[in-house]
């Protein structure tokens, strides 16, 4: 085996390294793309919707005003040709026709007194005089022309005045309309404000009424509770008196009365009770003056144990220290 063979046999020919590199790059590009799109999807805030809330539609009032004003502007220009056409038939002679353009410049200048006008005519219209020379009555014609010019001037003046007046009128009308619109708007606003005020007022009243109702309810509740308490108290009182009567009756039933005592002696005892009705202590509080009667009552008290007590332990306090008063005669 020669070296060449060895070389040939040991050389490692790797298949497609460039393709492998390209694939590696592709993997990374795909991964990064996924990352970027993933990030961007979460990054975008949700498209917020902007909603304008209009109380009512925007008022179209100002537009009509303009529209109404606009058309008169055009007529303004149109009437101009009309008066210009009119003067044409007025001159009787056919010659003044070339002069007609002239009054236009003259119109522009303020109407001068007649005399200077003639002078100007003389100066400015020598060529015309030459043209008109063939006609014999130059003077008359001149006069005529002057008259006509004056007439035309007056006409133009009138027109201008009319135009200005019309414009004035239009302006006034527009102003009036605007003022009216303004007024209307103000009125509407006023109305709106009033409505709002009324609403507010109503709301306030409603609130007041609710508050009152609540107060009323609370008061009623309080009264009811008080009544209940009173009733409970009354019940308790009646219970207490009932049991006191029962106790007294039980004691009385046990008394063996000593015979033949004079008058109606009264003896009073303080009795201390235990819960359950047992008697802790019996003490003479006020003697009747007859020891046999006192001792008879004491014995009866001791004998009548247990004393009847209400089943409610809360009421026991009323019976802890009991005062027993016994009359001899009853």
């Amino acid at each position: 085996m020669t070296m060449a063979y060895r070389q040939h046999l040991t050389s490692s020919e790797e298949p497609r390294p460039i393709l492998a590199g390209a694939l590696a790059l592709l993997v990374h590009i795909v991964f990064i793309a996924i990352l970027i799109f993933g990030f961007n999807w979460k990054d975008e805030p949700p498209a917020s919707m902007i909603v304008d809330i209009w109380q009512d539609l925007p008022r179209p009032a100002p537009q009509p005003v303009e529209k109404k004003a606009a058309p008169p502007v055009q007529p303004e220009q149109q009437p101009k040709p009309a008066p210009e056409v009119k003067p044409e038939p007025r001159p009787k002679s056919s010659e003044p026709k070339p002069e007609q353009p002239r009054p236009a410049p003259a119109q522009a200048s303020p109407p001068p007194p007649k005399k200077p006008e003639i002078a100007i005519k003389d100066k400015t219209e020598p060529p015309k005089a030459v043209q008109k020379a063939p006609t014999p009555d130059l003077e008359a014609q001149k006069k005529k022309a002057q008259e006509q010019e004056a007439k035309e001037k007056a006409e133009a003046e009138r027109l201008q005045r009319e135009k200005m007046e019309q414009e004035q009128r239009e302006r006034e009308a527009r102003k009036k309309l605007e003022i009216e619109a303004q007024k209307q708007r103000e009125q509407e606003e006023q109305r709106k404000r009033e409505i709002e005020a009324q609403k507010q007022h109503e709301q306030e009243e409603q609130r007041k009424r609710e508050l009152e109702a609540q107060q009323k309810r609370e008061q009623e509740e309080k009264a009811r509770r008080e009544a209940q308490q009173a009733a409970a108290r009354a019940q308790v009182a009646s219970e207490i008196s009932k049991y006191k009567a029962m106790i007294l009756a039980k004691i009385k039933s046990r008394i063996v009365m000593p015979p033949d005592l004079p008058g109606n002696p009264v003896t009073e005892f303080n009795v201390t009770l235990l819960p359950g009705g047992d008697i802790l202590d019996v003490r003479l509080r006020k003697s009747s003056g007859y020891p046999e009667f006192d001792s008879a009552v004491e014995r009866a008290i001791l004998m009548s144990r247990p004393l009847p007590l209400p089943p409610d332990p809360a009421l026991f306090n009323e019976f802890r220290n009991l005062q027993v008063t016994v009359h001899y005669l009853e």
Partner: protein
Amino acid sequence: MNPTVTQDLSLFHLISSASVFVQLVMLMLLLASLLSWWYIFRKMFVLREAVKQSDDFEDSFWRGADLNVLYQRAVGSRYAPSSMERIFVAGFGEFSKHKPGANIDMMMDSIRRAMQATYQREMDRLESHLSFLATVGSVSPYIGLLGTVWGIMNSFRSLSNITQATIAHVAPGIAEALIATAMGLFAAIPAVIAYNRYVSDIEKLATRFESFMEELSNVLQRRAPTNLE
């Protein structure tokens, strides 16, 4: 790293606003990932081809083709021979170098050694770059973590001047720092998977080569007595 009211957390912004150290870590990880993917694809092609060529060669070998013809074809081929072919060439070349009447044991030993040497060389070739994949797979998560820890340290340090610290002040810094970890994991996971896969593939190929070597030495040993006659 100025925490502003509107935080742009897009990927490019996060990367570009990271500190230089974190950016370096990211660059390193990107390169490691690119290289490891390159090796993954290269190894994939190499191993696929090795398996296919071994299949072909074994097929023609066991179909009873003449060993001399196979040898001539392998040596004279314009293309680089496959691993199995090389083992065969080494073994058969060693076999044909022996004079008739030589000691069979010695001859078989030398044949085995020659084949073994070629086998080692081939295994070396197949296993090349696998260590790189293993390194990337085990180290790049740590590199990513280092970048992340560094970035988080920085973002917390920037908190020291703020009296009322909220999570919004640290969040962008942490996010950009975490990209380093993400990149480390992105580099490591495919590398580890590919490494395990290729190691098992190469082991399978190695067993095939070894069994082929044994079988070839048997064949050559059987042919040796006829050589003596």
